């Protein structure tokens, strides 16, 4: 009987400890998959702060690097926002991590997000430009010729 009570108490303690850790968790993580691809060179990075709502006093640091270990990185945002839109990236692999700075100025980092940029082929782009020019000029021709015909 006594042992059952002990087990119950231990389980309750573990449960309460688990709830406490998760309720006040400040783990930072990106929203969505940690491996992303784009053919346009732009992407919206979104992150969240554990189970707690973000506040105006939070200081997030967003870093970009060309290697997974962030040996050479640059800060691309520092502030309370929960997202950052990046654009104009050339072909390549980019790594991002976001951290939350605490009062002692220590930063807890998220797991990195890998963004692969591979733009569309220029060949397809030029084919579409040629197609667009033909459609546009043909439309102009229909209107100009039609207008001349009915305004004589």
């Amino acid at each position, binding site marked *: 009987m006594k042992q059952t009570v002990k087990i119950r108490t231990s389980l309750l303690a573990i449960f309460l400890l688990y709830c406490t850790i998760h309720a006040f968790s400040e783990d930072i993580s990106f929203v969505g998959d940690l491996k992303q691809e784009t*053919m*346009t*060179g*732009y992407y*919206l990075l*979104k992150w969240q702060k554990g189970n707690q709502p*973000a506040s105006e006093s939070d200081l997030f640091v967003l870093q970009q690097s060309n290697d997974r270990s962030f040996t050479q990185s640059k800060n*691309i*945002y520092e*502030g*309370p*926002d*929960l*997202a*950052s*839109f990046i*654009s*104009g*990236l*050339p072909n390549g692999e980019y790594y991002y991590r976001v951290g939350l700075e605490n009062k002692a100025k220590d930063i807890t980092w998220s797991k990195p997000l890998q963004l692969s940029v591979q*733009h*569309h*082929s*220029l060949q*397809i*782009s*030029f084919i*579409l*430009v040629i*197609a*667009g*020019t033909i*459609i*546009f000029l*043909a*439309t*102009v021709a*229909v*209107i*100009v*010729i*039609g*207008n001349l*015909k*009915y305004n004589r």
Partner: protein
Amino acid sequence: MYHQSEILSQQTGWIILAILSVVWIGLGIYWGKKAKSNEGFMLAGRNVGLALGTATAMATWITSNTTMLAPQFALQLGIWGMIAYSTASFGLFLFAPLAKRIREIMPNGYTSGDFIRLRYGKTSWIIFLAISIFYGFTWLVSMGMAGGILLNAIAGIPYQLGMTVILLVCVVYTLFGGLFAVIGTDFIQSVIILIGVVIIGFGVLDKVDFDLVYENLSTDRPMLINALMPASIMAIFNNLLFGIGEVFHSNVWWSRAFAMRKGIGKKAYNLAGLFWLPVPIAAGFIALACGALNINVTSPDMVGPLVAANLLGKAGSIIVFIVLFSSLASSIDSLLAATSDLITEDIYKKIIRPTASDEKVRKMSARIVIGLGIFAWAICMPRIGTLATVLFFAGPMVGSTIWPIATGLFWKKASSKGATMGMVLGSAVGLLAYFQLGWYTASLIGAGVSMLTVILFSLQSKENFEWNLLKDN
């Protein structure tokens, strides 16, 4: 929504919003007194002159899409993206001769749907109505969303509240005044927009260091100034054709062509295009400065207002707020009026109650304005995407209407089958491109497939359409 640091206090935001709302509703009620008949309510008595005609066309085309989407284009697709957006002015330039032709061949017409029904018959008409109402709705939703995003980013007003107020104000004054109120408020709104854009432009030119902007772009966002960025090259003709398709098919533009006095339409649309052309370039350019100014952007459609407001401080933010509210209102009211006309004339009067009296039709038109407002509000509540993704989803359908409209106005041999198949195939293949290649290709491919289909059917056609059939209506 991802937290974005706001510029004005919520209190200031609410005060400006309240003043603007009272002004627009008051003017709507004042102008509404002029609308004695249903024709007055729907087409402003078919007597709109050059100044009002030009102002209403320009103000309607300067939408949230110009002031918010053009900067988004610049931030996503760089210099070419910015230029691509400005090509939408060709929609107005090319519609100018069409406006003249429309007024001549359909002096008693009401809607773009009228034209398709009389020119091509019932099947094409139903497909066209589906496309046109769907497009009108995506435009309305994108602008309701833009209103909510704007008020949230600039003044911290919750998205749902801001969006609700903007839609409500526009529904109320359109309800009271019809096209009279829409055109009257458009005139004032276009003056506010032009003055505001000039002030913002000079403010930005004064405060932005161009060398710093260039340096920042070349190190951090090099593809934005790369002339060979593939997605932006694709976007040029896509946007051009999207703009042309929007203007050619939408009842927003046809209702103005019917409302303008004879001989006015062509000049008014050409002038509106000229006034409109530099606005997206000016609005787009400031987005490129966001990196150099260390402004974090949490949603690409907010970059323009954010940069302008950050650069110009509190006074600038108030100007940006007023300009954007005016540009939103001038388009939402036009869309509510034109879409309601389309549904009233083409569905209620032609299908449901052909014998309905003028008074009943007007009552129904008012109910449709309210219904459209409520429906748009319900869709806007959950923020479903960026402005570009929402609006350009209608791109392939819109692009597929260019050739049926243009050839229908000038070619006697343009056939009903060609128009129907052009719209169906163009929309289907364009949507495939939207998902397979990207939103920046869908209108172009939709327009191209539709063009080929219309030409092929016209070559085989034995039709010889009698233009008087349109006039008699």
